[in-house]
């Protein structure tokens, strides 16, 4: 039935958005994960990607969390001569995570999740109303 299919498709959206949320959580949690020794790299920001594919069983396009890519923008630098990973100039490389950007991404994931939730509850209401015809 098409209504159950749309619930399944929306569920795939929920799954991928929660995966995106996990990646954002990793970025935010590691916003200060600098290098522990000289020459080591700090945490590199992760970017979630979405992959669409046709579910043969459902006969509909669903979405999956694709490969999580790495952000190639340069790292932030911080002046901290006492840090064990500081270079000769006293600079330490810090992760290329901007917590403002992460917060906006989080809001976007939240909105998209809510849209999919609304679709599920609307679909359920439609099924419910259809069954209610039998009762009257």
């Amino acid at each position, binding site marked *: 039935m098409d209504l*159950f299919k749309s*619930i*399944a498709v929306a*569920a795939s959206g*929920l*799954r991928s958005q*929660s995966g995106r949320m996990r990646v954002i959580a990793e970025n935010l949690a590691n916003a200060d994960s600098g290098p522990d020794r000289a020459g080591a790299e700090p945490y590199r920001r992760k970017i979630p990607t979405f992959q669409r594919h046709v579910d043969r069983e459902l006969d509909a396009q669903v979405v999956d969390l694709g490969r999580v890519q790495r952000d190639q923008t340069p790292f932030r630098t911080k002046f901290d001569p006492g840090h064990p990973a500081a270079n000769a100039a006293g600079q330490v490389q810090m992760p290329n995570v901007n917590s403002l950007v992460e917060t906006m991404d989080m809001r976007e994931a939240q909105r998209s999740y809510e849209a999919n939730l609304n679709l*599920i509850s609307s679909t*359920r209401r439609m*099924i*419910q109303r259809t*069954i*209610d015809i*039998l*009762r009257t």
Partner: protein
Amino acid sequence: MATPSFAAGAYASIQGMGAGGLMRKPSTLTTASDAGPDFSSLVGKALEATADVGRKSDSQTANVVSGRSDIVDVVTAVAESEAAIETLVAVRDRVIAAYEEIMRMPV
């Protein structure tokens, strides 16, 4: 669905019982079962399908509790089983209402 013919058959057979079994069993019953699928098998199949969906949602819930599955899967499985059960209950109510309607018929 073979509902009206089933109700007619049931009515006829009960009428036969009322006569102390002396009356010959009406032929409507046999023609009803010959014509379409058996009503009891229909109900059995519907129950089987509903129970199957219910089992699926149960196992999904167990998976989530043990941390092996996503809560989204439980929500979809429970929504599906709820719809299946509600459809079954609604159809059952309608069939029983039709049967009672026939039983109230003055003879």
